[in-house]
């Protein structure tokens, strides 16, 4: 089976993937930070649904200027419009989700698909607001832009607990 797969492991995987993929795709360097540095910053979000052996909703929130910079760095010019920014943000998140659930699969041999990637502009970011308890990781970039990566707890927590009991 490999590594001990508990919630701590999952959070470390999520943190490493978010930083690595953001850096590789856009050159933006993320570092973990504490939630108190976030305050009431207005953020946009990309959200996705995972379904299969477990169900999970995921969300990556960031200040819009981070998403704009992500698109600008990837395209090599100023994005033409907000739609172009959203497309690049969605692709970043698709890659992050794919790698995240692949890592879960490789370690605890369970399968799921992700779909319905959606970009939600502030101030209406409520993708996970009514989904129960969530895990959230907090990040800050080298240009002091704030970001968060969140996922719903319940289904994946049960799966990890069952896996530990084996």
């Amino acid at each position, binding site marked *: 089976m490999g590594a001990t797969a508990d919630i701590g492991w999952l959070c470390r995987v999520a943190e490493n993937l978010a930083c690595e*993929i953001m850096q*590789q*795709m856009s050159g933006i360097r993320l570092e973990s930070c504490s939630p108190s540095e976030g305050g009431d910053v207005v953020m946009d979000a990309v959200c996705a649904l995972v379904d299969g052996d477990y169900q999970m909703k995921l969300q990556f929130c960031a200040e819009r200027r981070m998403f704009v910079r992500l698109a600008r760095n*990837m*395209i*090599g010019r100023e994005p033409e419009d907000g739609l172009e920014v959203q*497309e*690049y943000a*969605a*692709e970043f998140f*698709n*890659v*992050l*989700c*794919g*790698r995240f*659930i*692949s890592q879960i*699969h*490789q370690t605890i041999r369970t*399968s799921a*698909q*992700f*779909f319905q990637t959606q970009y939600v502009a502030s101030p209406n970011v409520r993708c996970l607001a009514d989904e129960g308890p969530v895990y959230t990781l907090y990040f800050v970039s080298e240009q002091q832009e704030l970001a968060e990566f969140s996922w719903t707890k319940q289904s994946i927590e049960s799966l990890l607990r069952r896996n530990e009991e084996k």
Partner: protein
Amino acid sequence: MKRKIMVVDDSRVVYAEMKKMLDGSEIEISGYCRSGEEALERYEEIRPELVTLDIVMPGMDGLDTCKKMLERWPDARILMVSSLAYDDTMDAAAEYGAKGFLYKPFKQDDLLEGIRKALPPAE
């Protein structure tokens, strides 16, 4: 003479990134399709030397598209491209006849190497 590939991915971002990374190389994108269904409709018209195929797409997914494409055109060459790296997905793709698997996010060198390995020998 340029080597011709067809890109199949629902994300225009992937097409744009690939185009940028292949600029200046011996490889050009002769067709772009946003779904498996469109790829099967246009393959005969485009007749690429290689198809890069995303796995997670709305409608027909990449694995199904790979299987159907190789059933209709057994000499087609397919490189699967995805961030979803399940062993059984990769095994299934290889069993259908895909020539390789490229993980997202990929760098320019990875893309060039993956495509060059999957292309048929130049005539």
